[in-house]
């Protein structure tokens, strides 16, 4: 099991590298090689590291461990076909982790990054609405049952297309350089991760790799259905290409606009959920 976990982490980092490369090519830059994020993680792990004097040491270190821990948990829930609600719970808790990263150092940049991550809590609500819609169709929230449903009835991507769009938006909001990545905007240096350097940042990179892998795999499992490993990897690469285009072609929004758009999406999703509940599946 540990081997799968490590492979997933490295593949997730590779996906992030592909993401960067495509964004660079769209913007007519050569861009870094696609394995840059893996090198990045290794580079940070070889840096001299200490804990800032102003930080709260236990939280400063503990939050890195928690970040890797929760996404490890999400990975195993994915592998065992467990409840999608738990994975979404972990997704929401990532917000708390970002918050912890930002606040624990005492740096104002980190603090504003952390506060922005709390403000962008609006992005999770469409997620729950889309999960509710899926539950209405499949009568279960277990990943294995959702995949079985799709084997019989065809992919949910077609049946519940707006729900897929909402979840795509949610994944987009967690992608670096995206329109909603206000938590690591450049006016805040690096946002919540400004003060986590050296091995702490390397740990964060591990978490990011695992997070990318899990989120993309969950999207494919929920909206496409069961896939064999090669097709899963191909699907994830395709998804990251689409995400890269979305990130490269949209400017980063101001925090206010970002929240407004997420609230609008939430409202649309609520209307869609009401239609599904009342008309399609009364």
């Amino acid at each position: 099991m540990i081997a799968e976990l490590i492979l997933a982490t490295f593949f997730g980092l590779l996906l992030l590298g592909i993401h960067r490369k495509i964004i660079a090519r769209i913007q007519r830059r050569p861009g870094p090689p696609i394995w840059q994020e893996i090198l990045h993680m290794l580079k940070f792990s070889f840096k001299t590291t200490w804990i800032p004097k102003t930080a709260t040491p236990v939280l400063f270190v503990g939050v890195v461990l928690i970040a890797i821990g929760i996404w490890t948990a999400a990975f195993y829930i994915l592998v065992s076909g467990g409840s999608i609600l738990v994975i979404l719970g972990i997704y929401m808790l990532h917000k708390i982790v970002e918050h912890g990263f930002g606040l624990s150092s005492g740096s104002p940049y980190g603090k504003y990054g952390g506060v922005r991550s709390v403000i962008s809590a609006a992005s999770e609500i469409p997620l729950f609405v889309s999960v509710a819609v899926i539950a209405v169709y499949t009568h279960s929230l277990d990943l294995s049952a959702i995949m079985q449903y799709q084997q019989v009835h065809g992919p949910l991507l077609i049946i519940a297309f707006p729900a897929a769009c909402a979840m795509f938006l949610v994944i987009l909001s967690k992608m670096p350089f995206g329109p909603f990545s206000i938590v690591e905007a450049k006016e805040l240096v690096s946002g919540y991760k400004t003060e986590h350097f050296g091995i702490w940042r390397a740990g964060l990179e591990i978490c990011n790799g695992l997070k990318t892998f899990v989120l993309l795999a969950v999207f494919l499992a929920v909206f496409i259905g069961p896939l064999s490993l090669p097709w899963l990897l191909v699907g994830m690469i395709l998804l990251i290409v689409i995400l890269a285009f979305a990130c490269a072609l949209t400017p980063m929004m101001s925090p206010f606009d970002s929240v407004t758009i997420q609230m609008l999406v939430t409202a649309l999703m609520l209307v869609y959920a009401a239609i599904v509940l009342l008309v399609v599946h009364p």
Partner: protein
Amino acid sequence: MKRTTVVRIFWAGAAVCVVASVLFFMGIIPLPVCAALLIVAFPVTVLSLFFCWMAGEFGGDIPFIGY
């Protein structure tokens, strides 16, 4: 922390990860138990591995002095 301590933590964590995986494949422990062990051990193993690469033999940290 001293380098020897960090190296010990790393080997302990790595041992837990590997043993849990092996026991799972042999069917001795169920997946939730294996996952629970890995969730605790994996982050500690990774961070201690990174730390032992550059940890000095002496204790103490460089204080934060601002910019």
